[in-house]
């Protein structure tokens, strides 16, 4: 056994010695992302193609599922063998890594590309830590979307997009009466939290939203806002079908595509599912920001650049940051991914109706970041727990629930 083990070990050592020798000189980078499905992968491919065109060598390490990718990434860091780039959200999720000195800053690239001018200030702040830019943003997803099936609306006799929550619930009743599942609900914690947030934004406004999530403000106004949100959120329980629990968002979207259900709360990535099924925005399905909402919740992706201790990889990281922020690439990427470009100075003409709406809100800075950007991963988890517990617990005790909500930040 011992000799066999030895053989294996030597084999591994040799493999390790010779492998990197194959690709020298060229800036080489290993990208770890969770963008594995059709549209996502196509979007990533845009960056890859351009990166390779500019002389880089791209090694793909895609791992589906954010949990799995995070586990793999963190373990690579622990092993002292991080990939050259990792896809991840902007904001607090990366803060611990930066704080531990594990990431390379890309200040010079940002300065040369005048990122401070091109990006909305809030975004720029969220990719900077202690005054230095560390992350290269790829695109943003609007998350306050309400998609609806035009066919279902027609059958239920709904002619206008609802402007208020009252109108909205009236519409849902009509759908129900027409024998249609009113809400195609994706009963997974992360989806439910997104719905909670969109309602919250509609109830407390942009400032109120930021007060709660950034300042952890526990004033009467905030508590009242949470209660109103929970009220609306709780009402929705009456409009979902039996199979909602644990349902994937794309299965929910499929219910809209087949007109089995009326509406779905989801991020703008759901458009990809409609597109694949041959449905067109504005014609077969509608997209609107949820009622009474002054703006839009967004989540923004970026690339993280861990320190690899390899000069070639450092060079590649800078090249990659340039590529990602290239205006043309930003648009191309967003087209494929169904997202909104980060830069304000891009060509909007190619974007679809929904994306244009989103970009308008974005450029007007009528947006608030998703909890994944504003909260630590622990808090994000607790928020998911809170929302899920409220939703599936069936409780209507809003006062004590609001109390629990603020316990997340303790």
């Amino acid at each position, binding site marked *: 056994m011992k000799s066999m083990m030895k053989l294996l070990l030597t084999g591994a050592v040799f493999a390790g010695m010779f492998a990197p020798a194959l690709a020298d000189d060229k800036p080489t980078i290993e990208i770890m992302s969770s963008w*594995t499905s059709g549209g996502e992968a196509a979007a990533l491919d845009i960056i890859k193609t351009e990166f390779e065109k500019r002389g880089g060598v791209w090694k793909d*390490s895609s791992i589906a599922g954010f949990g799995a990718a995070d586990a793999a990434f963190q373990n690579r860091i622990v092993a002292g063998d991080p990939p050259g780039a990792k896809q991840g959200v902007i904001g607090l999720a990366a803060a611990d890594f930066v704080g531990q000195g594990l990431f390379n800053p890309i200040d010079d690239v940002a300065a040369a590309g005048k990122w401070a001018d091109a990006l909305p200030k809030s975004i720029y702040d969220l990719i900077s830590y202690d005054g230095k830019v560390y992350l290269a943003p790829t695109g943003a997803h609007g998350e306050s979307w309400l998609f609806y099936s035009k066919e279902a609306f027609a059958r239920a006799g709904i002619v206008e997009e609802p402007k208020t929550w009252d109108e909205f619930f009236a519409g849902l009743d009509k759908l129900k009466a027409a024998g249609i599942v009113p809400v195609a609900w994706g009963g997974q914690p992360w989806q439910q939290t997104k719905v909670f947030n969109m309602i919250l934004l509609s109830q407390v406004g942009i400032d109120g939203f930021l007060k709660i999530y950034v300042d952890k403000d526990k004033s009467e106004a905030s508590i009242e806002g949470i209660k109103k949100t929970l009220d609306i959120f709780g009402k929705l329980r009456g409009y979902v079908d039996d199979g909602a629990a644990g349902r994937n968002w794309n299965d929910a979207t499929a219910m809209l595509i087949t007109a089995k259900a009326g509406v779905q709360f989801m991020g703008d990535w759901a458009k990809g599912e409609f597109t694949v099924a041959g449905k067109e925005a504005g014609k077969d399905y509608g997209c609107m920001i949820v009622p009474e909402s002054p703006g839009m919740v967004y989540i923004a992706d970026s690339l993280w650049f861990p320190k690899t201790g390899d000069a070639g990889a450092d060079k590649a990281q800078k090249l990659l940051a340039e590529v990602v922020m290239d205006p043309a690439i930003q648009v191309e990427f967003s087209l494929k991914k169904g997202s909104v470009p980060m830069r304000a100075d891009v060509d909007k003409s190619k974007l679809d109706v929904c994306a244009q709406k989103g970009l308008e809100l974005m450029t007007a800075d009528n947006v608030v970041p998703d909890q994944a950007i504003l909260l630590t991963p622990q808090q994000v988890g607790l928020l998911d727990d809170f929302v899920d517990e409220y939703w599936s617990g069936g409780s209507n005790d809003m006062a004590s629930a609001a109390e629990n909500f603020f316990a997340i930040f303790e």
Partner: protein
Amino acid sequence: MARLHPNGPRPTQITAGRIGLYAFLFIAALFFLLPLYTMVVTSLKTMSEIRLGQIFSLPQTLDFSAWATAWSGACMGTTCVGIRTGFWNSVAITVPSVALSVFVGAVNGYALSLWRPRWANVLFGLLMAGGLIPYQIFLYPMVRAMANVSLYNSLAGIILVHVIFGLPLVTLLFRNYFVSVPEELCKAARVDGAGFWRIFFEIMLPIAVPMVVVVSMLQFTGIWNDFLLGLVFAGRDNLPMTVQLNNIVNTTMGERNYNVNMAATILTAIVPLAIYFLSGRWFVRGIAAGAVKG
């Protein structure tokens, strides 16, 4: 009705009990086969047909394209090569891992039960306790340790990890097997002048063949189906099929092609399935030979 005069062989009868017995077996078979059936028919449908939501209905037309896509066309990130490449990685990981862990387990079981060196019971207790620890908690320190000995992200590394995590189970099974081997056999061999290893290779290992079959099949299934360890320890050049399957099946915001998912799932499971279908009888025989006892 005139009663028959009993004479000659008793006529065989179909009794209610017999009918009930077969009914039970057929219902059980249905319960066990239904999921597999569902997977197969789903993999043969088109997505539009799947969206109709009749998961048990037969496909309107047989569409094998999902299988082709799963095997060689499905995309993971920017590469679209299906789970084909992962297949050989899985083989390269599983075969040596199984061989090595069966070997180590057999040696352990043999040494612990027939030689009983000092502290043997303590070691066995530690192993059993180790078998109860959720292995997620090992990831972090193990990654560190493997990186320190330059085994992280290597084939040798992932094999070693599988052998380590397999130790409690294989040792338990082999020990229980060897405990039932008469001690005199070992004594006779020692009088004949054979040492520890000679007795192991020439006498005990041949006796333990049924057990080797059982443990190999259990380990093969476990290692082939592993996802987390492969993901964390194997390194990007050695990712097993399950990681690629996950890349196809598990997507948070992307669209899902259930037919491709099902085809990929069956493809991933096909090797252990084939082993059970083909050598199930050896498994049963191995267990009957006393492989698993109290």
